[in-house]
């Protein structure tokens, strides 16, 4: 109904044609890259770590491409466009988080690990229990993240192609079009990962990061030029057009506006964002794709530069959309604000009905699509690597597996995980699953990060500590979210017609992160196991790079 208004009124056919054309160009390029990459892949190191052959700049771009999801491009720009300042809180957490990765994790991990997060966790432990725990946590985090991205992709493509409720496109209803999108995105990510391995996936992420940063840069420059590069007047007009006045520029329109609970929730979210990144398996795996720890450091520094610049630009895009498109027009398209950036592009290109507007809009829509594909491919790769390397080769077969067989299992599990993600996403299609991204960060911060930090820095840490940290952090985070208002009870909950929520916060981080660290400590001190020579080896290897793969 509402989709008939605004930016979709004119030239729906032309716009869809342009958008689909650009989608097709991007898909063709990435398929070509993937097939090309597959010719260079021979060993397990090629499949999991692209032969450790990427340069710091390339890996920095790929990290950015892996990390900046559609949620951060469309979602944060939309949040800023609708709620003003509060959208910015997300960007800051997502960026500062990289310092944890840079200072404490990236180099030590690159030096002491091989292909997966569990390589470092299990280094001085009994392999099977730790590999099993780390593998499970990797798959859980990745699947949560995948479902959120794929369900988002379905709605997004429907939105970008302008297929509203009750409308049809090429004979498909909105629901069918969403399902087709989910299947298509799933099939492409499976292809990238199964055929291209880490090398193919990395190149898809590099291309995507280049497109995303270029697109955002062009829009930012055009927006700022409209205000003669005077940020204050951009903010002034945004506040005025938002209908909220100066409140639009102050914290509090969305988070922490109500009672004490919303304020604690804001802090809880902030903690999960800043501590989660360095525990995300698909991010950690990227550190293995460069030759040395020094290159891992340089990659993260590049990534901090790209990601920081990008989030600064989303600020201009969000306020620009509020100022030039207006919050009302954005909300009319999508109540979550996800179309703010595409609508801004259309307005900057000349407005609805102009060729420039249609072109710019189609370009930004294609960038958003590329963004989703690159992120889901990274997630599928990380989880399939963990299933093959941690669960199959090490937990099940105690490391006595032929390398070629292990890679075959990795390819097979990428296929299976992709298929599971497709099916779950289709079932979840009409549920509000946006909270799954925050939950993935919370699980990573509560289960993975304590285990990683204890592993690297605490001599006494042992097998029981590692498994308790992972299961404890993961269990508490998931348990609390099940009984939180995002799953049941509220109007926007995943299940809105039942109410079994008793936990008051939307984000479990403030409880589950300390719980993960606590369980890691408790499990350790309750077990006598201690392997000092192995810790000496880990310490020397992680700091000097001796014996690095």
């Amino acid at each position, binding site marked *: 109904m509402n989709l008939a208004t605004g930016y979709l009124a004119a030239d729906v056919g032309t716009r869809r044609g342009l958008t689909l054309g650009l989608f097709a160009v991007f898909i063709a390029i990435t398929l070509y890259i993937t097939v090309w990459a597959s010719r260079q892949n021979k060993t397990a190191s090629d499949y999991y770590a692209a032969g450790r052959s990427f340069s710091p700049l390339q890996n920095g771009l790929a990290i950015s491409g892996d990390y900046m999801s559609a949620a951060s491009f469309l979602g944060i720009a939309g949040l800023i466009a609708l709620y003003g*300042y509060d959208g*910015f*809180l997300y960007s*800051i*957490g997502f*960026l*500062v988080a*990289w*310092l*944890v990765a*840079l*200072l*404490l994790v990236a180099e030590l991990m690159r030096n002491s690990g091989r292909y997966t997060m569990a390589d470092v966790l299990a280094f001085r*432990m*009994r*392999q099977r229990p730790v590999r099993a725990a780390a593998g499970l946590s990797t798959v859980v985090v990745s699947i949560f993240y995948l479902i959120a991205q794929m369900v988002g992709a379905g709605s997004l493509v429907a939105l970008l192609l302008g297929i509203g409720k009750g409308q049809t496109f090429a004979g498909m209803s909105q629901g069918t079009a969403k399902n087709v999108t989910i299947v298509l995105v799933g099939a492409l990510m499976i292809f990238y990962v199964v055929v291209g391995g880490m090398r193919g996936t990395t190149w898809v992420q590099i291309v995507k990061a280049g497109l995303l940063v270029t697109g955002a840069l062009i829009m930012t420059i055009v927006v700022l030029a409209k205000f003669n590069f005077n*940020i*204050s*007047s951009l*903010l*002034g007009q945004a506040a005025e057009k938002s209908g909220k006045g*100066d409140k639009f*520029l*102050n*914290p*509090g329109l969305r*988070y*922490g506006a109500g009672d004490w609970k919303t304020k604690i929730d*804001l*802090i809880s979210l*902030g903690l999960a964002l800043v501590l989660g990144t360095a525990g995300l398996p698909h991010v950690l795996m990227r550190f293995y794709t460069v030759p040395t*720890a*020094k290159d891992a*450091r340089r990659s*993260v*520094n590049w990534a*901090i*530069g790209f990601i*920081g610049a990008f*989030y*600064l630009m989303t600020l201009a895009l969000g306020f620009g959309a509020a100022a030039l498109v207006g919050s009302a027009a954005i909300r009319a398209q999508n109540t979550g604000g996800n179309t703010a950036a595409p609508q801004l592009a259309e307005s900057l290109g000349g407005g609805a009905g102009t060729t420039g507007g249609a072109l710019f809009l189609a370009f930004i829509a294609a960038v958003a699509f590329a963004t989703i594909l690159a992120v889901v491919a990274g997630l599928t790769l990380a989880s399939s690597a963990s299933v093959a390397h941690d669960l199959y080769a090490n937990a099940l077969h105690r490391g006595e597996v032929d390398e070629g067989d292990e890679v075959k299992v990795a390819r097979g599990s990428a296929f299976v995980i992709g298929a599971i993600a497709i099916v779950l996403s289709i079932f979840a299609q009409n549920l509000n699953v946006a909270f799954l991204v925050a939950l993935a960060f919370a699980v990573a911060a509560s289960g993975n990060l304590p285990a990683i930090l204890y592993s690297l820095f605490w001599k006494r840490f042992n*097998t029981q500590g590692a498994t308790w940290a992972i299961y404890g952090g993961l269990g508490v985070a998931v348990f609390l979210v099940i009984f939180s208002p995002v799953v049941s009870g509220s109007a926007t909950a995943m299940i809105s017609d039942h109410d079994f929520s008793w936990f008051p916060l939307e984000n479990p981080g403030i409880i589950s992160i300390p719980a993960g660290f606590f369980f890691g400590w408790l499990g350790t001190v*309750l*077990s*006598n*196991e*201690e*392997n*000092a*020579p*192995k810790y*000496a*080896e880990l*310490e*020397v290897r992680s*700091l*000097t*790079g*001796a*014996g690095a793969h």
Partner: protein
Amino acid sequence: MASDLGTGAGAATAPPPNSAYVAMEADPRFVELRRRYRSFVFPMTVAFLAWYLLYVLLSAYARGFMDAKVVGHINVALVFGLLQFVSTFGIAWLYARYANSRLDPIADELRGEVK
């Protein structure tokens, strides 16, 4: 839980490489490398986490302060947020410089010595 496969038996029969690492861990140069690394990253981590938490807490509880205008439509909250970007870029740059001059030379020297 405590008496398991990999610990006691594994450590006792550990191959020689282990002892080279144990020796290196006690080497004064390695001790210095670890001290230099930890004396930079631990305080810095505490500092940036505290700085970030301060920002989040102010956003939640010090609305009056955050809402104050600095110049034109630019308020304290925006300046504070932008300062988080500045500090992140700054710490990343400082660490790279520190690691290049104070950590890498020792690590490069020790790497080849462990066999």
